[in-house]
């Protein structure tokens, strides 16, 4: 925008407002050289000692080493001249003199840095999650296929399986209260408590969704019934979290609880991806039921459907309850609560 587009008082208002924010300081240089002729502006923002006429500009500012003389105009955005202080530096080529202009952009840069940090933390977190996922699904499955222990039909195999959902209660508010690094570390600790318990009972991690896991039993070979494997896995998961919470309590960290839902039925197992990176997905009516049970489970609670309960028999101390499940309606299900969080006694 040029001056003529805007009435002079308005132009001046904007100019003085902007200049005030930028705290500019400048050096006039001998044409085609880096010798300082004149100095002006708010140098206290950029260096301890004000540059002097006669000095070489790159002797005063390391950042200018190899940048001078100014053969063509340039802009160096967001240079950290001091810790936590950001400066835009402009080199301007004019017919008779060259100029260096310094503008303070600290405030603006720090504002952007917050978003920048969140998005970059997220990139690292996502990569870490992908690796966990690959380690627990991709690798496991491809190994077993390679060893002929398991056969897969890409068109979708029908099988009776048990599906287990588990998630961390209160993780969203926890996430909002703490910085990304802390959240990442905590999530990892809880995942490390849950995932081995699934694998040890021949379960397969189907998905990791933020703070929750979906696992299927009855796909990988096992001597036990899939419902029994899923139940033992759930017990072991809660036990592992109970132990983890013990450590967290004694380190003065917040304890988080988990809830589990298990349902069983026939499912179509499909394969996503190809070649080395095969990953499953299980599709069946009971999968949705298992997810609903998990979202109704209280801290330390295992909720199972009728089918799982019938298979387990009476000996596992479940209590019959009737719940209204979203999208499903009134359901007779079974509940058992195990210790998961330590009291602060």
């Amino acid at each position, binding site marked *: 925008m040029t001056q003529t587009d805007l009435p002079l008082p308005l132009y001046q208002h904007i100019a003085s407002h902007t200049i005030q924010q930028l705290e500019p300081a400048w050096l006039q240089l001998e044409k085609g050289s880096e010798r300082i002729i004149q100095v002006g502006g708010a140098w206290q923002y950029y260096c301890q000692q004000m540059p002097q006429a006669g000095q070489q500009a790159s002797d005063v500012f390391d950042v200018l080493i*190899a940048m001078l003389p100014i053969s063509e105009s340039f802009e160096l955005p967001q240079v950290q001249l001091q810790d936590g202080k950001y400066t835009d530096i402009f080199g301007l080529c004019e017919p008779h003199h060259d100029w260096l202009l310094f503008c303070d952009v600290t405030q603006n840069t720090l504002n952007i840095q917050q978003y920048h940090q969140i998005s970059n933390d997220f990139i690292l977190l996502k990569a870490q999650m992908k690796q966990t996922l690959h380690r627990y699904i991709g690798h496991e499955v491809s190994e077993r296929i390679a060893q002929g222990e398991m056969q897969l039909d890409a068109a979708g195999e029908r099988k009776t399986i048990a599906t287990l959902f588990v998630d961390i209660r209160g993780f969203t508010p926890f996430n909002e209260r703490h910085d990304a690094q802390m959240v990442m570390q905590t999530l990892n600790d809880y995942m490390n408590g849950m995932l081995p318990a699934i694998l040890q009972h021949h379960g397969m991690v189907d998905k990791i969704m933020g703070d929750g896991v979906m696992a299927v039993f009855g796909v990988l070979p096992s001597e036990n019934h899939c419902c029994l494997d899923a139940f033992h896995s759930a017990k072991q998961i809660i036990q592992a979290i109970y132990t983890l919470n013990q450590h967290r309590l004694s380190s003065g960290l917040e304890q988080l609880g988990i809830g589990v839902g298990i349902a069983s039925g026939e499912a179509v197992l499909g394969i996503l991806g190809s070649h080395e990176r095969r990953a499953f997905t299980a599709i069946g009516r009971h999968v949705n039921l298992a997810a609903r049970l998990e979202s109704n489970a209280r801290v330390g609670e295992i909720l199972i459907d009728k089918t799982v309960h019938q298979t387990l028999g009476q000996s596992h101390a479940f209590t019959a309850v009737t719940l209204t499940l979203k999208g499903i309606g009134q359901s007779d299900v079974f509940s058992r609560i195990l210790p998961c969080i330590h009291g602060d006694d």
Partner: protein
Amino acid sequence: MIQKKICILGAAGVGKTSLTAQFVYSKFSEKYLSTMGVKIDKKVVTVDDTSVNLMIWDIHGEDKYKKITNSYLRGSAGILTVIDGTRAETIQTAYEILERVHRDIGKIPNIFLLNKHDLSDAWDINEQALAELKKYGNPIYTTSAKTGEHVDSSFQKLTKMLIKP
């Protein structure tokens, strides 16, 4: 004393700032503070009796929305292109950056650093990717800003390439 400017380039979070901190201050931190713009450090490096004052430009990570301003590269004598060995996708970013460097300021000496080598469990660079990288004909070092593995030697090597082409 000879002064040389070098730039450290690569995708976000690959360890550019950590490598610089390890090289200049022998320090490492697990905490990630993403770089905005550029920060300049210096260190005197001696190769075969010649002392070089190395100006190290630690530049912000490149991503889809934030490309590296090419005026940062002005006057640069050499570059270290950093790849996160636990994230193979950062190789692609390295290639894209390098192509722009070649286009904008020409073929200056470059070394590839495959960083975070201490995280061997999570290593994500396979033989094929490595073979591809070798085609560039630039030296490749596996480094760790955490343990210090190959950090000094890679800066030393680049300095050597700058003064004895």
